[in-house]
């Protein structure tokens, strides 16, 4: 269920390397995270050009019942935000690993990816929750 092509944080965000040479990743939250939240109604993301820090708060996500902080799995600069989420926040529920992506980030320290979990370890981690 958790795609093999990306890395995962224990806070339930994922990072997918798009272009290793340019150091760009896509960032989003996992299926487990959206399932725990329930119907997502609002996603607050940083502006394009803003810096994000490894496991530092990058935004907030609200469901009908709860609000949670979002943490960036990597350090870097935001090069694009998923503009569709402003009008269609439910994409985070329906396609968390695809159309529900949140940020495109140019990494400043790609070694941080090594600190994240691979799909197998993340799935194992979920089993212990």
């Amino acid at each position, binding site marked *: 269920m958790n795609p093999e092509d990306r890395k995962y944080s224990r*806070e*339930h965000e994922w990072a997918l390397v798009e272009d290793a040479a340019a150091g760009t990743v896509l960032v989003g*939250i996992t299926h487990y*995270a959206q399932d*725990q*939240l*329930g*119907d997502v*109604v*609002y996603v*607050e993301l940083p502006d394009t050009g803003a810096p994000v820090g490894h496991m530092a708060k990058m935004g*907030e996500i*609200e*469901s*009908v*019942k709860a*609000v*949670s902080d979002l943490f960036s799995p990597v350090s870097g600069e935001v090069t694009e935000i998923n503009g569709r989420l402003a009008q269609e*926040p439910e994409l985070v*529920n329906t396609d968390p690993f695809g159309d529900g992506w949140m940020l495109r980030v140019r990494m400043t320290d790609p070694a941080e990816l090594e600190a994240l979990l691979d799909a197998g370890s993340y799935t194992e981690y979920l089993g212990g*929750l």
Partner: protein
Amino acid sequence: MAADTTAAENLRTALYDTHVALGARMVPFGGWDMPVQYEGVIAEVAAVRNAAGLFDVSHMGRLHIGGPNAAALLDILLTGSASGLRVGRARYCFICNERGGVIDDTIFYRLSEDEFLLIPNAGNRPAVSLWFDRQLAQHFDGRGVHITDRTMLTGLIAVQGPKAVEIVDRLCEDFTPGARRASNPGRTPAPSQLRPFTWGRGHIDGRRVFIGRTGYTGEDGFELAVGSTDVVAIWNKLTDAGAVPCGLGARDVLRLEAGLPLHGHELSDTITPIEAGFGRFVRRDGGYNGADVLDHQRVYGTERRLIGLTLPGRSAPRAGYDVLADGEVVGTVASGSYSPTLEQCIAMAFVDAAHAEPDTVLTVDIRGRRAEATTADPPFYQRPG
């Protein structure tokens, strides 16, 4: 992201396994493990507003209060009159302490001249039971009233929404209204003939059902009390008939849209019904606990008042957030949510009386962001017709 946890010592309703089999997410609430959602809060709210939703509310208490002094005791304990309530009818009101604070809000049904069924909130059931026992000892020397907690022997299901009445009508057999004189002589009695805040009895699937035309969603519908061994069968009959299982998440949104209070938020033992704007459920002839305080507040007003707030957008004010006017904190949010029915955010908040007039523009501090909010009288939603 933090995971929900359920505690091993929590109580479970007779429908627990049914909820799990339906894929519900279970959360602790008021000492019980309860379903917070099945398919999703937005779909469940829509089911109740447009068709029919089904709620397990067995976590709420069932206190049977009987005996020759039952009505007289309840007249002291409740802000609504028990002795003045006719058999067959039900009433919403408050259980207040001597300071006028709300120990709990409740619906109670008059079953016969000297028998009542009272529904306290799940988390307040122990406090209400203890309070009633003490008050019985104090006022009647412990005599003439038997208080029996039937919560674990029975289940309680709410069927709510524009299609709820026809679903229950179709399934219910041998219906008899609780009032001695039926309101529609000559017609075969049916649950649909019950007026709001009345009750009757019947059978669903051959099992005895107590049927109250009451609810907590702002929609028409019923609350059904049944034996705990019959709950699952009756639940399944209702879902087969098209009622959609709904969790506490949807229930909280629905009650907030309808402007109904939740104890612990809009009401508490340090908040009076007058401050919360529910004086219409407080009788004017006194004689109940807290009457002096409430009568005084009704005449002279209160320093703070419960108001409604509406906000554009989808980032919701939530309980505990500050409400400001001209940069000064003037109140606190009691409950708030995105309203899928109204497609805006709504909240109820306690504010200084000077800022409580409708159409006042205030701001809410949403985790450091200042959001403009306009005061409004609840309910935010009223059903058509």
